[in-house]
C-alpha cells in the first residue's frame, strides 16, 4: 500500500488505482456491522433478496411464506445505532394479490424502483407497483417457478422465467403475455441470467446438469451448451456433475460463473464458451431444489473482482480469477440463501433461513476507535481480572 502511495505520488499509477486497491483490500476485512442492523420483520426464512440497481438503497426480500419486504438501507449520518426500517411489505396469503407459496425470486426493474417482479412456487410471476404495493400484472405458469430474470436491455422488456417442467418462458411486460418459450432442458430450470452485454443472449442452467446459451430471437435451439471438459470427453456436454443451481455474469458480460449441486463453482469464458478451469475448492452447501444465489463485488469498488458465495451458514469470499479463498463471514445460524452487495459502500447484505438479514461492512475498525472513547463501551471491552484469583 505504501508502495502504491509512493507510485501514485510519482505519477506512476493511474488515478483510480489507489482507491480500488484499497477497496479490494477492504473486501477481505468484512465483518458484522456494529452499529447498523435491519428491522426485525421477517417471520420466515428468507429465500431471495435484491438491492435496487438505480439508487442502491432499497433492499427487496422475500420469505418462504410468500411475504415481500422492502427495507431502506440508507446510511443516516450522525446516528450511533441505526436500524434500517421496513418501508413496505406484503404478507403472504393475506391479500388476494399476495403470494401463497414461497417466493423463489425477487427482481427490481433494472431502470426504476417503481416496479419489481416476484416469482413464487405458487406458479405465478407477478409484477408489482412499488409505491402502491399492489400487483399490476400476473403471469400464470403451469408449474412452479424456480427462477426468473429481467432483461437489462433497453430495446425490450422481456422476462425469462424458469419453471419446473424445464421450459423457459419469455414474458413480455409490454404486452402482458408470454411471447414464446425456450424448450430444451429436460429437467427443471434452476437459474436464468440475461447477458449484461448482449441483450438477446440468455443463459439458463437446469437440473439436467447443462448450461445453455440462447439467442432469444432464435428459439428453435440453443446457441451452445457449456461443457465442463471443454469437449475433451465426448459429445455429451455437461457443465456440472450435478444440478446447475446458480449463474452469474460478470458486470462486463465477459465471464459467467456457475454453481452446482456438486458443490463446485466454475468460471466460463463467454466469448469462447470454455471452462476457465479455476479451482475454487469445494463449497459445501445443502441446496438441491433451490437456486444458489451468489454475488460479485462491483468493479467500481474492487481492483480484482471477488466472489461472495453462501456456504451453509457462512459466506465465503473468493478471488474470482485465482480461486483463492480470502475470508469467511460467520454470523448466520442457518443456511444463507441470498446475498447482495451495495456498490456504493463496501457493504454486503445476507439473508438466511434463520429469518435475519445481516449487514456486513468493512468500516468497523474506524467505528471501533470512535466507540472506544465511550466509557460504557470501554467497560465492555475491558478485561476484568480480579485480584482474588
Amino acid at each position: 500500500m505504501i508502495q502504491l502511495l509512493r507510485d501514485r505520488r510519482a505519477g506512476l499509477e493511474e488515478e483510480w488505482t489507489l482507491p480500488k486497491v484499497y477497496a479490494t483490500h477492504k473486501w477481505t476485512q468484512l465483518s458484522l456491522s456494529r452499529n447498523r442492523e435491519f428491522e426485525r420483520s421477517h417471520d420466515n426464512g428468507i429465500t431471495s433478496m435484491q438491492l435496487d440497481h438505480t439508487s442502491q438503497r432499497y433492499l427487496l426480500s422475500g420469505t418462504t411464506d410468500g411475504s415481500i419486504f422492502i427495507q431502506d438501507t440508507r446510511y443516516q449520518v450522525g446516528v450511533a445505532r441505526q436500524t434500517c426500517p421496513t418501508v413496505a411489505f406484503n404478507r403472504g396469503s393475506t391479500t388476494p394479490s399476495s403470494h401463497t407459496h414461497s417466493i423463489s425470486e425477487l427482481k427490481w426493474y433494472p431502470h426504476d424502483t417503481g416496479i419489481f417482479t416476484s416469482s413464487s412456487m405458487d406458479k405465478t410471476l407477478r409484477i408489482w407497483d412499488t409505491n402502491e404495493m399492489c400487483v399490476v400484472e400476473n403471469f400464470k405458469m403451469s408449474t412452479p417457478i424456480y427462477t426468473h430474470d429481467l432483461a437489462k436491455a433497453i430495446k425490450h422488456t422481456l422476462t425469462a422465467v424458469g419453471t419446473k417442467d424445464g421450459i423457459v418462458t419469455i414474458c413480455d411486460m409490454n404486452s402482458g403475455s408470454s411471447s414464446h418459450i425456450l424448450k430444451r432442458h429436460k429437467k427443471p430450470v434452476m437459474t436464468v441470467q440475461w447477458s449484461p452485454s448482449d441483450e438477446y443472449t440468455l443463459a439458463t442452467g437446469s437440473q439436467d446438469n447443462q448450461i445453455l446459451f440462447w439467442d432469444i430471437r432464435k428459439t428453435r435451439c440453443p446457441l451452445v451448451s457449456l461443457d465442463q471438459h471443454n469437449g475433451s470427453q465426448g459429445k455429451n456436454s455437461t457443465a456440472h456433475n450435478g444440478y446447475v443451481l446458480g449463474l452469474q455474469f460478470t458486470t462486463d458480460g465477459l465471464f459467467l460463473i456457475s454453481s452446482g449441486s456438486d458443490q463446485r463453482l466454475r468460471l466460463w469464458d463467454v466469448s469462447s464458451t470454455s471452462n476457465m478451469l479455476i479451482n475454487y475448492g469445494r463449497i459445501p452447501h445443502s441446496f438441491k431444489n433451490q437456486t444458489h444465489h451468489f454475488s460479485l463485488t462491483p468493479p467500481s469498488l474492487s481492483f480484482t473482482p471477488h466472489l461472495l458465495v453462501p456456504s451453509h451458514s457462512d459466506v465465503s469470499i473468493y478471488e474470482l480469477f485465482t480461486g483463492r479463498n480470502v475470508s469467511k463471514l460467520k454470523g448466520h445460524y442457518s443456511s444463507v440463501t441470498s446475498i447482495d452487495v451495495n456498490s456504493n459502500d463496501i457493504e454486503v447484505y445476507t439473508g438466511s433461513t434463520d429469518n435475519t438479514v445481516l449487514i456486513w461492512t468493512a468500516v468497523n475498525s474506524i467505528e471501533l476507535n470512535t466507540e472506544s472513547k465511550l466509557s460504557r463501551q470501554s467497560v465492555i471491552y475491558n478485561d476484568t481480572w480480579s485480584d482474588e484469583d
Partner: protein
Amino acid sequence: MEIEARTEILKIIETLTHSGDPSLDEKLMKKIKNYCRTNNTYVQLVYDRLMRDVATKHSEVRLSSFQIIDQLFQRSHIFRQLVTSDCQKLIMLVCGVEPLPPPRLAAAKLKEVSLLSFKEWVEKYGEGYPKLKLGYNYLKHNKKVDFDRLTSSSEGEQRRQEERESRQRAFLEQRLEKIRVEMNEQAPDIKGCLFEMESCFKILMPSFMDLFPLNESNPVSNCSQNSTKSDSVSAETDSELVLKTVGSPSSNETSSQTGGCSREPDDTSTDGESESDDVEWEEVTMATGAINGLVGRNPTVTTIRVPDRVIVNKDDNETLIATLRERYKLAVKTYLPRINKWIEWFTKAGQEALLKEAIDLKAQVLAAKGKYAELDIKGLEQEEEEDSSTGPTDLAPPSYPPDSIAAHCSSLLPWTTAVASYHKTPVGLEEDLASDPTTPQAQMKAKGLLQQQSATIPPGPAKGAASGSSQTSSAATVPFDVDLLHWGDSRQPSIMPTAMDSLHRYWCAEPDLTVSEDVMASLSHRSITFAGTFQPVERSCRAPLPSGSLCPRKDKIKCPLHGVIIPRDEHGDPIDCLEMSQSDTVIETKTPAAAAPPDTPKGPGGTKDKKPRSKKTKYPGLTDIKKLEKTPKNRIESKILNKHVLARVGKKLDALDQKRGKTKFSDNFNYALKS
C-alpha cells in the same frame, strides 16, 4: 518455561473438564485464570482446548467446559472475542439446539446453565459484541427459548403440549357433560330405589316389632299415608285389621293389586300353592313396578301377620326381603360405584354444585346401606329361627339361599332351569334335592346315577354323596350332559333320526337315516382334554454372570445361555464336581497354563471364565456413557437385528417364497423365468 506452562494449562483443563463434578475446582480454576491473565496467547490456547472439550459427546464434559468458558468470558476481552466469533458452534453444542449427548441429567443441567449464562452475557456484553446478540435473537425467535422462564422447548414441543392440554380439557368437559346427563337421568332411579328400600324397611320394621314384641309406639315411617295406617295397625287387633286393610287399599289402588291382595289371605290356608302364587304376585307388583305398589303391599303384610301362621308370614317376608335385597344389591353394586365415579370426576373438574348433589346421593345410599346392614342380620336370624321352628316339612320348599330365589321360583318350569339349579345347589343340599321328585337329582337317583355324577373321580370312594362329602367338595365337576344321562347304560342309546323332507312334489332320493359312529359315540362318551396343571419352576439357573450376579432365569431343564441347570452353591459354583469335570476337560487341556483350581466357576456349557480385567478408566469421575447404552434392549437388538442375521432370515424367506412360486405357478412364465 513456555512449553511447561502450556502443558500444565492443558493438563489442568483436562482434569477440570473430565472431573465429572457438577461444579468446578476453585483452585485449578484460579490457576488457569492466573495463566490467562499473564499472557493472551494462553487465552487462545485455553479457548482452543475448551472448544475441543465442549464438542465431546459427553454432557458432563460439556458442562464443565462450559462452566470454564463462562468464567473466562466474564473476565477476558480476548476470550469474549474468540467466543463470539464462533458463537454458532457453541450455541449448537451447548444450548440444546441439537440433541445433547448422554447422560441426561447433565444434559438438562447444561442446557439450563448455558441459557442462563447466555442471558447474562447478552445483558452485560450484548452491546459490544453484535454476534452475541444475534445468537440471543436466534435462540429467542427461531428456537423459541423463553429466556424469562428459561425453558428451551422447541416450537413443536410447545404446540404439542398445548394441543395435549386443550384435548384434555375438551375431553374433561365432554366427559363432565356426559356424566351430568347420566346423573340427571339416573338420580330419579336411584332415589326411587332408595325410596323402595325405605318403604321395605318401614314394612319390615313393624313386623319385627310384632315378632319380637317391643313397645308398640316405635317410630316406623315418615310417609303420612303409611303412618296413619301403621298407627292404626298397631292400635287395633289382628282380626279387625284384616277387614280394615282389605277394605282400605281398594280405594286407592289398581284393580290388579287389590285382586292380588285380596287373594293373598285365601292362599295362606293352602301352603303348597302359596309359593307359586307368591311368584305371580311378585310379578304383578314388579310389572306395575311403582312405589305405590309396594306401599300397597303394606296392608297385606300386616294382615298376614297373624301370630299362629308363622310360615305364611315368613313366606311373605321372604319376597319382601328379596325385593329389598335386590334393591340393596342394585344400590350398592351398581349405584354406589357409579356415584363414586361421578364424585371423582366432579372433583377433578371442580364442579361444586354437581359434586354436592352427588355427595348427597352417596350419603343417602350409604344411609340405606347401613340400615340394611343393621336390618339384614336380624332378618336372617329371624329366618333361621323360623326355619328351625318350622322343622322339616316335606311340603315346604327347601330353604334356598334368598339370592337364588328367582331361579328357585322358576324351577317350576320343568327342564330348562334344572341344569341351572343343578349347578347352583351347594353340595350339602343334594340329598334334599334328591328327595324332591321334580329335581333332576331325583331322576338320576332313580336311575342310580347320583353316585357317578362326579365323573372325574374314580368310582371307588364315592359311595354316597353324604359320606364322601369332603371328597366331593374337592372333586372337579363337569356340567350335566347327554353322556351323563346314558352313563353306565349297557344298551346303546338309540337315536331316531328324522329325515329332512323336501317340500317339493317331485321324487327325491331316499334320505339316509343312518347315524354316524361319531354321533353315537358322543351320546355315551365325552372327551375332556386334560392339560395337566401348571407347575412353576422353583429353581433358577444361578450361573455366575460377568456382572457378578447370578443368572436369574428359571427354566425347567436347560438354560438357553448356560446349558443344563445344575445345583449350585451361593456363589454360583456348581456343587456336583463330577458333571463339571466332564464338561471342562476340553478347556483344561487347551489351557493347561491357567493355574486355576479344578472346581473354578466355569459354565457347564463350556463358557470361559473371564478374568476380571483391571482396565483402568481414564477418567474415573465421568459417568460411563457406554455403560448407559448397555441396556437389555440394545443387547438384544444387536443380536436380533444383526446385519448377518437379517440377511440370513431374508434369504430363507426368499427361498421359501421362491419355492412356493415354483410349486404353485411353475407354468406361469413369469415365475418360471425368475427362478
